[in-house]
Every structure is written in structure tokens, then in C-alpha cells.
């Protein structure tokens, strides 16, 4: 009883209700699943009817291929969905003029931000889970292990958390939702596209240098590989294909059998965890005006008591339980 009160705080409760009551939410589930379904159907159509060399049969290999395609499609869909669902959570309350009243309640800034993010994440998780039936063909023909499947879905959750935290942060930084959404998409574009292009570009230059300096150095990994670890697609492939991380760090023509400096997905998770934490701290700090605490003796008639209260307030995420 008590832990549900903790977990389902008033803000989350309200966010859930509002979201599930809006017809737009149900439409977005529908269109999302439809979009992924079209990708699956398109893939099956291409393999079975267009590829003349194939045996025109759907086998485990094709099934594995299909899983890759679906995984990428899903990643792109998430990149489009997450900013739209999170970049408005604070600014839209400001626009609808409900924010000031929410801010005068006893809910701490941390609770408000985390609850809003959690609610958006739950909804996205629901949508992603709703696409599971599309994967049934993959299950049917095999070629992919349940462990890979689970790790990819956990990876999605992390990407949603990343884009969501950025979206919520921009939502507190910009007064207008539309600007927050655009900036979040822009940041998403940097994470998804620019990191990948930068990797290819730098790899090209490094390769050039290697040739012009005469002797290839087959025993070394290039730092350029770290760039690919910042890219969600690169990180995801490294989850599916264990040798991919090594290839990413390796120069063309080089060969090495030892372990790569770091698995790309691990790098991705480590680096962006820092980004997520920073984004959330900025969001929490920005939602309310915070005065610099100058503790003087004349804090008030109940200064001692108040100081105690203020101490509890710092970093307090749960609601004050009335006992």
C-alpha cells in the first residue's frame, strides 16, 4: 500500500490519466504499429518475390535479416517519437497555464520532472511492446536468440531515456513547446546522424594517413572507433553482433584478435548516462526559480524548524508522507 503511494505519486497518476484519455495517444499506438508492420511486410515481399537468387523461401537467415531491419526501423521510429512525446511535458503546461499552480504545490521539482519523464517513458515502452506481434515471424523462423531480443529492447529503453531526458530539459529551457521539440529533434539528429558521419569521415582520414605514412600498423586500434560508440545504430549493431565492436576500431587491412578497447554499446551507455543525468539536473534546476541560500540568523521566527525542513527538501524525490 505504502510503496504504491510512493511509486504512483500524484503527478504520475495525473500524467497517466491525461495521456490514456487523449484519443491522440491511441492513434499514435495504431500508426506506430502500422508503420513497423509495413516495414515487416515490405521486407517479406522483397525477399520472397523480388530477389531472384533466393530460394523464395523464408528461412532462419532471412528471419535474422528481418530482425535487423525491424530493429533499425524501430530505432528510427523511436528517434521520431521520443522528442514529440517529451519535449512538451513542461512547456505545454506553461502554455496551458497550469504550470504555476502545479509549482505552488508541495511536489518537489525532482518529483515533477522524474514523474513526467517516467510517464512518457512508460507510454513509449507500451508502444514498443505493442509492436511485439510484428516480431512473431522472426520468432517463428528463428535465427535470433531471446537474449539478443531482450538486450535490443533494453537498448531501446535507454535510447528513449536519453532522448526523453533531453526533451524534458529543453522543455524547461524554452518557453514554447514548438521550439523545444525542434531543438530536441536537432539534438537527436546530431546523436543519430552526425556521430555516424563523423566516424566515416575520420576513419577515412585515418586510413589515408596510414597509407601515406607507408607502413600499416596492424597491431593498433584507432581512436576513431570511439566515435561510432556514440552512435545508437553502431551501439545497437554491437549488441547483435559481438565482433562488430572490434571491427569498428580496426583499420582496414589491419588484423587483431585481441579484445577491442571497449564494447561500443557499453561506451554508448556510459557516455550517455552522464548526458542523461546532466540533462535531468538542469531540468530540475530550471523548473522553479532557485534562490542562492543565504543562511542568516534572522531567517524567521521558526528559522530552526524551517532550516530542518529545507535540509530534508534537498534532493527529496518522494512526496512528504502525511503521518
Amino acid at each position, binding site marked *: 500500500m505504502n510503496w504504491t503511494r510512493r511509486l504512483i505519486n500524484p503527478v504520475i497518476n495525473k500524467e497517466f490519466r491525461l495521456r490514456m484519455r487523449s484519443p491522440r495517444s491511441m492513434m499514435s499506438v495504431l500508426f506506430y504499429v502500422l508503420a513497423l508492420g509495413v516495414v515487416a511486410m515490405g521486407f517479406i515481399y522483397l525477399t520472397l518475390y523480388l530477389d531472384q537468387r533466393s530460394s523464395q523461401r523464408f528461412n532462419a537467415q532471412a528471419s535474422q535479416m528481418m530482425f535487423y531491419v525491424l530493429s533499425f526501423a524501430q530505432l528510427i521510429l523511436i528517434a521520431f517519437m521520443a522528442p514529440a512525446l517529451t519535449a512538451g511535458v513542461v512547456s505545454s503546461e506553461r502554455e496551458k497555464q497550469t504550470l*504555476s*499552480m502545479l509549482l505552488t504545490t508541495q511536489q518537489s521539482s525532482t518529483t515533477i520532472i522524474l514523474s513526467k519523464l517516467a510517464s512518457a517513458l512508460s507510454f513509449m515502452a507500451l508502444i514498443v511492446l505493442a509492436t511485439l506481434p510484428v516480431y512473431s515471424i522472426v520468432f517463428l523462423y528463428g535465427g535470433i536468440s531471446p537474449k539478443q531480443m531482450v538486450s535490443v529492447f533494453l537498448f531501446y529503453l535507454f535510447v528513449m531515456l536519453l532522448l526523453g531526458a533531453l526533451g524534458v530539459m529543453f522543455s524547461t529551457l524554452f518557453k514554447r513547446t514548438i521550439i523545444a521539440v525542434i531543438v530536441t529533434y536537432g539534438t537527436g539528429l546530431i546523436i543519430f546522424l552526425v556521430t555516424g558521419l563523423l566516424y566515416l569521415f575520420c576513419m577515412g582520414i585515418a586510413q589515408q594517413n596510414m597509407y601515406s605514412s607507408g607502413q600499416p600498423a596492424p597491431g593498433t586500434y584507432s581512436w576513431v572507433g570511439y566515435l561510432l560508440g556514440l552512435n545508437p545504430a553502431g551501439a545497437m549493431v554491437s549488441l547483435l553482433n559481438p565482433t562488430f565492436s572490434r571491427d569498428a576500431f580496426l583499420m582496414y587491412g589491419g588484423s587483431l584478435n585481441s579484445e577491442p578497447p571497449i564494447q561500443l554499446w557499453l561506451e554508448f551507455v556510459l557516455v550517455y548516462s552522464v548526458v542523461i543525468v546532466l540533462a535531468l539536473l538542469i531540468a530540475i534546476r530550471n523548473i*522553479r526559480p532557485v*534562490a542562492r541560500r543565504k543562511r542568516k540568523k534572522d531567517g524567521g521566527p521558526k528559522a530552526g524548524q524551517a532550516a530542518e525542513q529545507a535540509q530534508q527538501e534537498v534532493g527529496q524525490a518522494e512526496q512528504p508522507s502525511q503521518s
Partner: protein
Amino acid sequence: MIEIRNLSKRYGNFHALKEINLEIGKGTVFGFVGPNGAGKSTTMSILATLMLPTSGVAKVDGYDVTQYPKEVRKRIGYMPDFFGVYDQLKATEYLHFYGASYGIPRTEREQLIPQLLELVNLSDKADAYVDTLSRGMKQRLCLARCLVHDPEVLILDEPASGLDPRARIEMREILKELKLMGKTIIISSHILPELAEMVDEIGVIEHGEMIAQGKVADIQNRLRVKKVIHIRTLEREEELAAKLRDEPHVSSVLTDNTGVHVHYSGDDVQQSALLRQVISWEIPIVSFQEAQSNLEDVFLEITKGGARE
């Protein structure tokens, strides 16, 4: 209960509040009056911990709003001048949400919310979605929302703005009840008569400066607002007006289609002598009435700028 000392707020180069001082005692209903853009909302949102002042101090129940915002929030119910509602919630859910946000346990809320709805005359709308309510109803619902945590201080920013006269009267009745409950209330308006009957004190603000404040009666006295006597006759209005102009203590006489308006500065004894005098002229008088000198006159007088100290 509320203490404001040298409070200033700047937006860039614009001084919205200039060194405001204000003290409001417990249980006082304070009318905060001034034209649009005077700085009322700015002051109120600083008190509501939504905005930081540029300099100066504001305290609620002894707690500085910038240093102990959480303590202040416990003690205030704030109603912004423009507010929105969560359309997809029902009236009760709406109040449940805010109640829970103030940490009130569910069982307590289930008893409290019907009472609050009763207080603001919305009992029959308990299960209606908020977006189906009229503006006046939303305003009252918002007022109920301010009360969920039983705050000692109510900060109501133009609670009657945009309401039709009927809704305005309903709002006023509710506020009277709150006053009886002993709440300290700050209520702002750019229209004074709205508040006339219920405020104990007023503060007049203009261009970010408090230009007058104190008990309503004191302010009226200090500004020596003259009594207006309204006389209605069956005929010979012009003759009456002409004769009145020569009477002592009469500063001016105006006539319009509602009768004769005499601006009078005599006391009650002199006024009764005037009445006898008027009757002795044998003009058919229908009524002789001292018009309620209303706050609006005070307000206009002050904000004209002429009465500035």
C-alpha cells in the same frame, strides 16, 4: 502574516516593482488595486514563490519566500490571473490531484472534496469533465483548488475578471465566507467596486509603486472624498440646482436624467439642516439620499495622480 520590505523586481531594464513595502495582518482581507500593468501580478507571483525578486524581502508567516519556498507553499493558496485546467479530468479528479500533490491522504480527500465543491456551489458538477464547465465555474473550481490544503493565506489574482455580473456575485459570496473562516486574503483587481464591500484594507499600486495604503475608511478620509447627495424631484430640477449652489458646504451641483447630484462636505448635522432647507422651498422631492461614496471614486482620485503625496 504577510510582510514585504523594499521589494523590487526588474525585467531587464524595466522596473516592474519599485521598493514596495506592505504589511498585512492575520485575518485581514487586503484589496490590491491598480490599473493594468501596475505590478499586482508580479507582486503576487513573488509571494507565491514563482518568481524571484530582484531585491528586497517578502515573508509569509515569517518565512522568507526565497529562502523557505516549501514552507511558504504550505501556507498559501494561489490563484493566478490566467490559469488553465486539465481538460480531461473530472472536477473531483482535478481536486484529488491537487489534494494529493499537497500530500493529503486519500481518505481525508474523499471527505474534503465534497465539502469544497459544496462551498463553491459545484456539487452538481462533481463528475463533469472540467472542460465542460463555464468560465465562472472553472474560476470557482480553481478557488476550491486553492483551499484543498487549508492554507492560512489566499493570494487571489483578479479572481473576478472576465466573469458576468451573476458569476461575480457568486464569487463575492464565496469570498465573504472565506473571510468568515478567518483566512488572510490578498485579492487584486483593477476594478475597485468589485472588492468594495469585502476588503478591510486597500493598497493602491501604480507603475510599480505603492501610492496609498491603509484602512478603506482612512484612505477615504485622507483624500477627503466628498459626500454625494442624490436628490430626485418630480419637477423644477434646474431651480433646485440653482438654489443649492448658494448653500454652505456645497462644492458643486450636477444634474442629469437621474436627478441632482450634490457634492457636499458638511457633517451630518449640517446635512439635516440642508434637508429642511430644501423641503422649505416646496419643490416636489421624491428622494433625498446620500450616495454610497464608493471605492471607485477613491481609486480614480488617487490614480489621477493629483492626490499623490
